[in-house]
C-alpha cells in the first residue's frame, strides 16, 4: 500500500513538473503586458522579471525600463540575444534599454545565465 502510494506520488510529481514548467507556460500566451507607456517597468527581483511577458508593436524602436533590485550578479545584465541588445543594470536604478525596430515574432530575454527569463512579443 505504502509502496503504491509513494510511487504514485512520484509519478504525479513528474507529471506536475512537466506540466507546470513546460506545458502550462507554453499555453500562457494570453496575458502579456503591453509596453507602450513610459511608466511601465520590468522589475528584476528574486530570479524573476516582472512582468516577464511583454508585447510591443512591430516596426518601431522602443525603450523598456528595467529596475534591478537583486544585488546578486546574476541579475546584472539583461540580454535580448536575437536583437543583439544587452544592457548592464545598476542595482536600485531604472535603466532604459533601447530596442531597435523588429519584425513580428517572439524574442526571449534573459540574464547571462538564463536563470532570469522573459519573452518579448513583437506584433
Amino acid at each position: 500500500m505504502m509502496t503504491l502510494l509513494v510511487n504514485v506520488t512520484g509519478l504525479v510529481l513528474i507529471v506536475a513538473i512537466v506540466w507546470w514548467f513546460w506545458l502550462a507556460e507554453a499555453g500562457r500566451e494570453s496575458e502579456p503586458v503591453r509596453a507602450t507607456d513610459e511608466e511601465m517597468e520590468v522589475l528584476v527581483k528574486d530570479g524573476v522579471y516582472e512582468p516577464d511577458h511583454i508585447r510591443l508593436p512591430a516596426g518601431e524602436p522602443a525603450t523598456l525600463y528595467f529596475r534591478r533590485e537583486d544585488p546578486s550578479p546574476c541579475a546584472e545584465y539583461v540580454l535580448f540575444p536575437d536583437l543583439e541588445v544587452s544592457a548592464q543594470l545598476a542595482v536600485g536604478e531604472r535603466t532604459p534599454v533601447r530596442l531597435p525596430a523588429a519584425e513580428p515574432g517572439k524574442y526571449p530575454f534573459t540574464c547571462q545565465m538564463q536563470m532570469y527569463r522573459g519573452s518579448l512579443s513583437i506584433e
Partner: protein
Amino acid sequence: MSAETTTTSPRTFRLEGVTCAGCVRKIENSLGAVEGVAEARVNLADRTLQVSGEASDAECIAAVESAGYGAERVRASERERREQQHEEEQRHYRSLLLRCALALGLGVPLMAWGLLGGDMMVNTPSQQLAWGAVGLLTLGVLVYCGGHFFTGAWRAFRHHNANMDTLVALGTGAAWLFSMAVVLAPQLLPEAARHVYFEASAMIIGLINLGQALELRARGRTSAAVEKLLELQDPTARVVRDGEERDLPLEEVRVDDRVRVRPGEKIPVDGTVEEGSSLVDESMLTGEPVPVKKGEGDFLSAGTLNKNGTLLFRAEKVGADTRLAQIIEMVKNAQSSRVPIARLADRISAIFVPTVMIIAVLAALAWFNFGPEPRAAHVLVVMTAVLIIACPCALGLATPMSVMVGVGKGAEHGVLIRNGKALQQASKLRTLVVDKTGTLTEGEPKLTEIETDDGFAGSADDLLQLLASLEQGSEHPLAAAVVAAARDRDVEFLRTEEFEAITAHGVTGRVDGKVLFLGNRKLMEREKIDAGGWRERVQELAGKGRTAMYAAVDGKMAGIIAVSDPLREDAKTAVTRLQQLGLRIEMLTGDNEGTAQAVARQLGIDRVHAELQPEDKEKIIGELQGSGEQVGMAGDGINDAPALARADVGFAIGAGTDVAIETADVTLMRSSLHGVADAIELSRATLRNIKQNLFGAFIYNTLGIPIAAGVLYPFTGALLSPVIAGAAMAMSSVTVVSNANRLRFFKPQGSGKSNTNEPATGGQVQ
C-alpha cells in the same frame, strides 16, 4: 511606487533661462512650496539647482517649470554610478559572507558531532527535544541565511520558471522537513531511518553562499577592462567661460566650451586644439606607445594623457558622444553579447532545472523500490544530493564570462570586437584579404628618387625646385608627394605660369621662365623629347613598386622623379605573423599589376588582385567565400566599407572613425596589421577558454548527477553526502569564472611575451 526613486541625498538639476538674481528667488520659492523639499539652492554662476529632500525629480522639475524656467536632472556620471555599484556589490559580498559564516557556524559543529561518532538518531524523547531545538535553529538559518533562495524559488515557480534557487530551496527544504518529521514522529519510520539531516541543510546554505561570494569577487575582475577605460575619464574639466577658468564636473561641459589641459592631466572631452602644443599619450586608446605631437587644429580624444605642454581646446563632443564613451559602450555591449557556440548550452540550460527535478524524483523512486534499507533515509539523501549537485550556473556562466574577459582584453590592446559572433568567426578565419593602401602601406606617397640628366644644368634640388613649383597647382596625389618633399628640403617655391594638366599624360607649365613637362612616356613622345637611357631606369623602378615620371626642361630631358607609397614599418612582420597563425593572405589594390606584385614580393604575400575598381573588392570576397572559406578582410573602413561588410569578419584598421566603429566587426584603434593578428590570437584563446568552460560544465553535471543519484553505491557502499554535493556545486561556478579570468593574462605574440596560444598548425599553401 513612482517611477523615480525618492531620495534624500541632494540632487543637481541644470536650469534653463536663468539670467538674474530675481530668477533665483522665484525658483527657490517655487520649490520651497513643494512638499518634501528640504532645501533648494540655485547657483547662478553654474545655472544649476541643488535640491535635497524627498520630493521626486518630476515634482521638482514641475515646480521649476511653473516658475517659468526649464530644468533637467544632471545624471550622476558613469563613474559615480560605478562607485555606487561597487559599494552595493561590496555590501552584497559582506552580507553573503555573513550568511555563510552563520550557516557554517551551525553546520560545522553539527557535522563534526556526526563524524566524531555523536548520535544523529532520534529514538528517545530527550533526543527528540534536543534535536527539535537544533531543528528550530536550522530553520532560523534557512530563513535568515537562505531566505533569498526560498523567495526566489517561489517567485520563479509562480512564473512557471525554475532556477538555481529552486534547486537549493527544494534540496535544503526537503532535508529539513524530513529531519523535522523524524524529530516529531520517529515512530513512523523504521529505526534505522530515524536519522536527522539538519547539518546538511545548514552546510549547503553556508557553502552556496560562500560560492556566490567567491563568484562575485571573481566576476568583479572580469570587468576590469571596462573599469580601466572608465578610469580614463577625469571627473572634472577646466573650462574657460567668459574669460574665467573654472573646474566644472564633466557632465556640465558643453559643446563649444573652451577647455584648458595642463601637463600631466587627462583630456576630458573630445575637441580640437586652439592654442598651444604638446605631446599626448594616446596609448590607452590605440595601444600605440609613442606619444603624438598635437598642435593647433589637431584632434584630441577624451581619456588621452597630456604630457608636457598646456593645451587650450574647443570641446566638440561631450558626454556619451566622445570616442572614449563610444568605445566603452561598444565594449560593454560586446561583452554581454551571445556567442553562437553557446547555443547548445543555452538550449540545455533552458530546460535544465525541471529536468534535474525529474531526475531527482526518478532516482528517489528507484532507491525506494529497489534500494536497501533504510530506504527512507536513502531516498532523502539521493534526492537532496541530486538537486544540490546539479549546477545550472556553471553551464550558464561558461561562455559569458570568457567573452567578457576576452572582449575586455581586446579593448586593452586597441582591438574593439563588435560582438560574440565576430569573436567566434575571427577564430575560424583561414583567409585574410588585405587592402594595400593605408593598411600595408602608409597611404601617403613619398618621393623616393630624383635623378638628373647630364644635360640638365643644376643639382637634384634645383630640379626638385622647378618640379615642385610646377606641381603646386596640381591636385594629383603624386604631386602632393613632390610638393611635400620640396617642403621637407626647405626648397623655395617659384612662380608658375601657364600651368596645364594634360589628361593621361602629365602636366606642363612655365616656371622661372623655363618651359617644363612632367609626365609619362607618352607625354615625352608627344612633345618629341628623347628620353634616351631613362626608359630602362623607369622600368627598373616600376619593378620595385615605384611610379616614375619623366621631367623635361626647355624641350630637353632633365631627369626623372619616382614616388612610392612606402610600406609600413611593421607590415612585413605582421604578415609573417599572420601566416604563422595559419592564414593565407591575399592583397587587393587599385594599383597596376607591376607595382602590386613588387609590394607582394617584398611582403611575402601569396596572391595579389591588382587594378581593381572599388566595387571589385566586394566581388572578390564573395568569390572566395563561394569556395567555402571563412574570409576576413582588413581595410581602412571608409573606402572598403562594402567589402568589410561582406567578409565574415571585417577588420577596420587604424581609423577609429565613427563609420568604422559602426560597420566593422573588429575595429583596430592602432594603424597596424599587427592588430589583426592580435585579434585573431585573442579570439582563438577566448574560444578555447569557452570550450574548456563548456566542457567542464557538461562533464561536471553529467558525472555529478549520476554519482549523486547513487550509481557508485554498489562499488563504494556509500551515498554521496549532500554536503559534499553542496560544496561541489559551489565550487563549480567559481571554477568556471576563475578559468575565464585566466584569459586576463593573455598577451599577443607581437608584444614579445609568450601567451597561451598553441603553435599555429601548418596547412597554408605557399
